């Protein structure tokens, strides 16, 4: 009976067999190597969509991709500016460095890493990752009361779970390791996301909006500002996880990287309505505690709401909390001069002199 069922003579493989396959096994890693090499050139950005670290936040991905391109092209970045969308559209690094150059005669390289909906919790994580990867001499933390509220952060808090970010924070994982060490893998992730038509529209919108220095310009418009007299933060109190994150960012202050906190201005007409309770509540519940925390870590806190915000041109606001293109130019120029002054007063290191080795 078994002989009626079993008779292994259909398959008739003779030697040599499989040599092509074996040769391809040798060529495959060579192809991978070539892909890796190509992905580290500047040419790859002419051909491929922006790389990705596997985050579900396209704005973060584009910011990181443009920063990578900048570093690849121009070398180490001198200063990074981290914060929410107020930073994203409010600080123009080109205007900043121009103002700085006019005062000092020297140039510096700054990058805007403002991410919309960013709060303190994500700021702590992102600043640590950026510091570990790019070793900027100066890190600005642009803050505003909503950065410490648990009502915000829906797009930025999920970044904490990203494998690459976890890897950069010291929580080893294979995916994070691969993303960090392989440029080709990052471009592969970027291509995979970009191929999806729904994703592509969003990714390209951000890629076009955010310039090579990370600035997300908000075009000037002449429509009247609204909601100026509506209170934004009712029953305001600091969210503990956002405070923890902020402290982690402050803790980066040291010899290698100097941290400076900047209060991001809001429209003066809106300022009394930002926190329920008016200007005194703003000062009591935001400015004072931030100031105290900054002092704990030896970090300068540059306040701008009272003195600088009123100087912003009246039509320099996109809305009650964000500067538009003109407003950003004004504020960035002020900031560039402020950096130059602080440098001359030795509040911050001279960014044009090399300190520790570049990454």
């Amino acid at each position, binding site marked *: 009976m078994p002989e009626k069922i079993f*008779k292994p003579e*259909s398959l008739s493989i003779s030697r040599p067999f499989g040599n092509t*396959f074996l040769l391809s096994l040798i060529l*495959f890693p060579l192809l991978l190597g070539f892909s890796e090499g190509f992905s580290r050139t500047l040419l790859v950005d002419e051909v491929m969509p922006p790389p990705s670290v596997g985050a579900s*936040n396209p704005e973060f991905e584009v910011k990181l991709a443009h920063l990578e391109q900048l570093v690849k092209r121009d070398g180490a970045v001198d200063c990074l500016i981290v914060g929410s969308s107020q930073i994203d559209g409010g600080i123009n690094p080109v205007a900043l460095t121009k103002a700085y150059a006019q005062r000092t005669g020297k140039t510096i390289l700054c990058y805007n890493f403002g991410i*919309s909906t960013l709060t303190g919790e994500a700021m702590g994580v992102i600043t640590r990752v950026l510091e570990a990867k790019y070793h900027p001499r100066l890190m600005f933390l642009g803050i505003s009361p909503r950065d410490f509220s648990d009502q915000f952060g829906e797009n930025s808090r999920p970044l904490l779970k990203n494998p690459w970010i976890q890897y950069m924070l010291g929580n080893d994982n294979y995916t994070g390791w691969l993303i960090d060490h392989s440029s080709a893998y990052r471009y592969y992730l970027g291509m*995979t996301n970009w*191929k999806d038509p729904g994703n592509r529209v969003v990714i390209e919108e951000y890629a076009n909006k955010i310039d090579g220095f990370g600035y997300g310009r908000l075009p000037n418009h002449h429509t009247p500002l609204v909601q100026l007299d509506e209170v934004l933060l009712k029953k305001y109190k600091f969210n503990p996880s956002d405070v923890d994150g902020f402290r982690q960012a402050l803790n980066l202050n040291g010899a290698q990287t100097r941290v400076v906190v900047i209060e991001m201005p809001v429209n003066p007409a809106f300022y009394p309505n930002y926190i329920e309770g008016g200007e005194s509540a703003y000062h009591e519940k935001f400015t004072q505690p931030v100031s105290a925390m900054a002092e704990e870590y030896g970090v300068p806190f540059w306040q701008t709401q009272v003195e600088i915000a009123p100087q912003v041109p009246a039509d320099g606001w996109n*809305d009650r909390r964000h500067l538009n293109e003109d407003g950003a130019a004004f504020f960035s120029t002020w900031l560039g001069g402020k950096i130059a002054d602080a440098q001359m007063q030795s509040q911050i290191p001279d960014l044009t002199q090399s300190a520790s080795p570049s990454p």
Partner: protein
Amino acid sequence: MDILSWQFAAFTVVVLAIYYLLTRRAQNVWLLLASYVFYLSMAWQYLALLLLTTVVNYFLAWRIERDVLDRPRPAVGEAATGGARSLRSRSSPFLSVGLLWNVAALVLFHLASSTYGQSIFGSDLHLALNPHSIWTRFLFPVGFSFYSLQAISYLVDVSRRQVPASRDALDFALYMAYFPKLTAGPIERARGFLPALARPRRVDNQAVTRGLALIVTGLVRKLVIAQTLQQMISTDLFKSPLSYGGLQLWGGILAYSFILYNDFAGYTSIMRGVSALFGLELNQNFNQPYFSRSFSEFWTRWHISLSNWLRDYIFFPVSRTLLRRQPNPRHPLNLVVPPLTTMLVSSLWHGFSLGMVTWGGLHGLYQALERLVQGSRPRQSQNRRPALQQVSSALLTFLLAMLAWVPFATNDFSLALQYWKGMVLLGPGVNAFRMPFGWIFAAIGLSLAIDWAQYHTADDVVFLKWVRPAQAFLLALAVLLVLASLGQAVDVSGFVYQGF
């Protein structure tokens, strides 16, 4: 079980491993069991329908053969003396029953899934068609369109004494159910396939290499080319053509032409490769159709198994019948009716919609016009025409075929009209969707490169003739590209600039 899944790969490996240990007869039993398991993994309703179709056609063929054998074969020369009538008299009423059974089922299933059917049956059918209803699966049996055509060809061939009615239920069941061709063809004829099942199979180095080469080529076509192109065009391009600019519409239908081709040709290549590993050859289904220099050539190169079926069971009978009535081959009746009838049947087989009928009608007209333009001029071999003439003919054929894909893609006549209008007017469109033409042309370029390599050697695994290092490099590159295509995107489409 999706054929592009690790489950299918594992399933095939397991089936193969045991297959190679068995005798021929046991191999057929094993393949039949595996095919039923494969189909069952999709839905038990599909398997029930397949079993019913198999049993009905198996026994109908017996009765047809008995009727046909009872009547004497016509003598030599009888065909000339009322031969057609004598031939018809040889057919059996059971052939009509069989044809009615298979065709009615085809019509019912197509009607159920069409908007016309839903308008006929009303909202009750809509309610019944919820995905959890057991009846839903009976009404949309995957693969039925293909194996029902096999059944029809089998019954007709038995009635014409082209093939004896099978007395081997197992082999016949396997002919109907063989899993590499079950869900989307190729449509195999019993005349070739049943004898192949009865022969011992031998899978040597060449067969394995050929099978694997076909699988890799198919994966490149389906995943690297077709899937990438699918992602390059907007998902509602064919549903809302008016909102897109002219350039987008041209780019979209160009991409679609290559999506359709590479998706189907890729699938067939994979299945032919799998079947080659079993020692069973499946017919080629695509032969570089976009290099065709005429529509009569196109339909010898596109979905060949279906085209041949339509030619043998629709075109020739209609053509010959009309030539009997009107001997002038250049009479409009003989020029227009056969191709139009054939293509309309083809369009209805694809789907019951005005869009499909428009597609089929266009191809029928193309062929009729070609014949008309040819006129009484002397024929010339395509290959002997000047190269420039051949290239321009191929480009024109492709352009017209591409335009005909519009109603196929929209599956709706009025949407097709909107699409064509947009292509002609070349307006800017209101949709901001930007088509990445660079990537589209890169994918199309890869498709054409594969086609060219196959075309001018008339060998679909021409790469196996290259020197070993080149083969190895190509294999490594193909694997890299296929793996790169498998990545799953993170969904960021809902991410809107928050400004917070």
